């Protein structure tokens, strides 16, 4: 077989797959048409638009730089692919006080505002798709999800309920400084000596803002709603 024939055959065998699973889906996904959702509030222009509030871009960058995706996923799989939807607080809330069961699988607009979806590689920690929603409602953190997250990021094992957590401590995201006239409102409840306090640094604030924005249980239009119809 000559070099030219060999390269041609290789190009064909690679190229068909390249076109079919990489390039064409890449272009199709860039041009996803918005899904109409006329029942949405008037500010959404009749389309499904899961708005996110918080420092999504900066926070996602800190999330990526510190490798959170190595242990946490952000994918709630449909029931044919896994049991994520059966958990009471991963895909949404099983018993949301206003809307009842808000759990749903991840859809293509849930990563709006991010450049690379941090789907994640392994689950050594829980899925984070609805972390923001979960923190608002579980006991002890509904007072201040941000404070819970700062304490968790500083040292997860400080929390007695998570004594065997394998999440690494991130003290480098925080600053240790002298207390000025009064303690900072977001100072952590950690004793670091007389007249000293721990406050979150800029990266910690961005990351926590991003994590609190993780609420992927917006109501979906009929075209994206795969829950079985009520009998």
């Amino acid at each position: 077989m000559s070099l030219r024939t060999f390269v041609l055959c290789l190009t064909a065998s690679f190229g068909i797959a390249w076109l079919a699973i990489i390039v064409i889906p890449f272009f199709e996904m860039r041009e996803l048409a918005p899904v109409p959702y006329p029942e949405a509030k008037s500010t959404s222009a009749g389309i499904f638009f899961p708005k996110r509030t918080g420092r999504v871009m900066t926070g996602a960058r800190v999330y990526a730089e510190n490798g959170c995706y190595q242990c946490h996923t952000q994918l709630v799989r449909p029931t044919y692919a896994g049991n994520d939807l059966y958990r009471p607080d991963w895909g949404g809330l099983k018993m949301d006080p206003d809307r009842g069961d808000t759990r749903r699988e991840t859809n293509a607009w849930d990563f709006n505002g991010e450049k690379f979806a941090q789907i994640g590689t392994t689950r050594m920690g829980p899925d984070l798709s609805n972390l923001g929603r979960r923190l608002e409602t579980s006991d002890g953190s509904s007072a201040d999800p941000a404070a819970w997250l700062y304490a968790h990021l500083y040292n997860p094992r400080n929390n007695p309920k998570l004594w065997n957590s394998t999440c690494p401590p991130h003290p480098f995201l925080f600053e240790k400084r002298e207390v000025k006239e009064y303690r900072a409102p977001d100072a952590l409840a950690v004793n670091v000596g007389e007249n000293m306090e721990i406050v979150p640094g800029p990266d910690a604030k961005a990351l926590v803002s991003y994590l609190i924005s993780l609420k992927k249980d917006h109501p979906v239009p009929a075209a994206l709603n795969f829950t079985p119809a009520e009998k």
Partner: protein
Amino acid sequence: MSSATTNTQDALVRSGIDRSLRHPVMFFLMSGAVWLSFALLLGVIASVKTSSPGFLGHCGFLTYGRVYPAHINALVYGWGMQTAFAVILWLMARLTRRECTMTGAILTAGHVWNLTIGLGLIGILSGFGTGMPWMEFPPFAWPVLLASYCVILVGPFIQFRVRPEERGNIAQWYLLAAVIWFPWIYLTANVLLHCVPGHPVMGAAINAWFRSALIFLFFTPVALGTASYLAPKVTGNPLYSDSLAKLGFWSLAIIGPWAGMQKLTGAPIPYFLPYLGGAATALFFIPALAAAVNTIRTIWPSREVLTVSPTLRFTLAGMVALVLLGVAAVILNLPDSMLPATQFSFSGYGFEILALYGFFGFVMFGATYFIVPRVTCREWISRRLIRWHFLFSLYGILTIIFVTLIGGYQQGLGQESWSLPWMKAVDAGVSIAVVITFAWCLILFSNIFFFLHLTLMWLRLGRRGSQPTLLACSPGNLGPAASGPATAH
């Protein structure tokens, strides 16, 4: 022309080729060994942190989320690629009987490669990683690495074109394919993820495809080509079956590019993509078994050589790992029974390490033990160091495979038990983590021996002699080229 003169001429050609390649090959093998030791050290640190997160907890640059990507990137790009460079350069030169004429350019590009990897790792550990698995180097790195790659491996492409014999053998086809495939997959992934804005979930899918393609379309063909050369060469037997070899190659070429997206099953991407990925990964057992059976049956009639030849021992271990890899590819990707549990568990990591170290790594070690004496004109100093390298690596990799593939499934079952609280699933993973740490320590230990041994050879402190360093006293009549003395062929 008498056969004696032909033999002498052949020997002269061969030693000319070896001499021209001494510096590039030893550079890449040594660099690879250094990066391997560094990657293994980082791997041990990362592994300890999965069971004791507070270990070295104050250092921001050693947090798990940075140390683990540094470990994988050093392993893949620092060790894996450079060892592949060394082996491809030497094998293609020998198989096409052409000397290396680009030594200066290759060495420069090699230094640039090392510098870029070093800066990239510093970038990851300082918190500038991109967050894309296996592509965490800051964005400056990939164009530089690609340019270096082109300089280093365009030489074998040219050598193949100007080869004297029209018929190529299977090793040449595998190596040439690997040389061509890597830029295709590297460029595709990096351009679509860094240069062109696309949908975030499709970006994650392309990244998953890249990770799989790097294993199936670069490391696998390099290892298979090397094994197809080493097994007949060391035993003196011809390759068992040419048609099986061709089947193995072309099935890999057709199946390989489709695999990878099963890592995103359930994600909001076109429905058929993960299924094609899973099917292709499962079908990988065809080229894997074809090549493994071919090589093992080539070795089998002369299996007594296994007791003495380090090259053959490592190659056979690599082939057995390939069989395990093919079987694991099927089992881990069964759609309804196994994939939901293994998708986000340690099993994926175990599969990658089996492919990178168990299969590719062992074959590369076999090639190293074959090539270095020929290129430095010295023999390995100590058979004990070779034996320890083999045994500790073998124990380590077997432990990792067993624990991650099986324990990973247990971990996955724990994750899928939705009625139990999440911390129960975490508990399932901790004991696995401890055993994996121990296994990495064994592998690090074995590679310290390898690194020391290789350094001595690089410094030309190897043993001068006409008899090769064998693992046991040679049992009389061996095959004509059984890791024979460097000067004989």
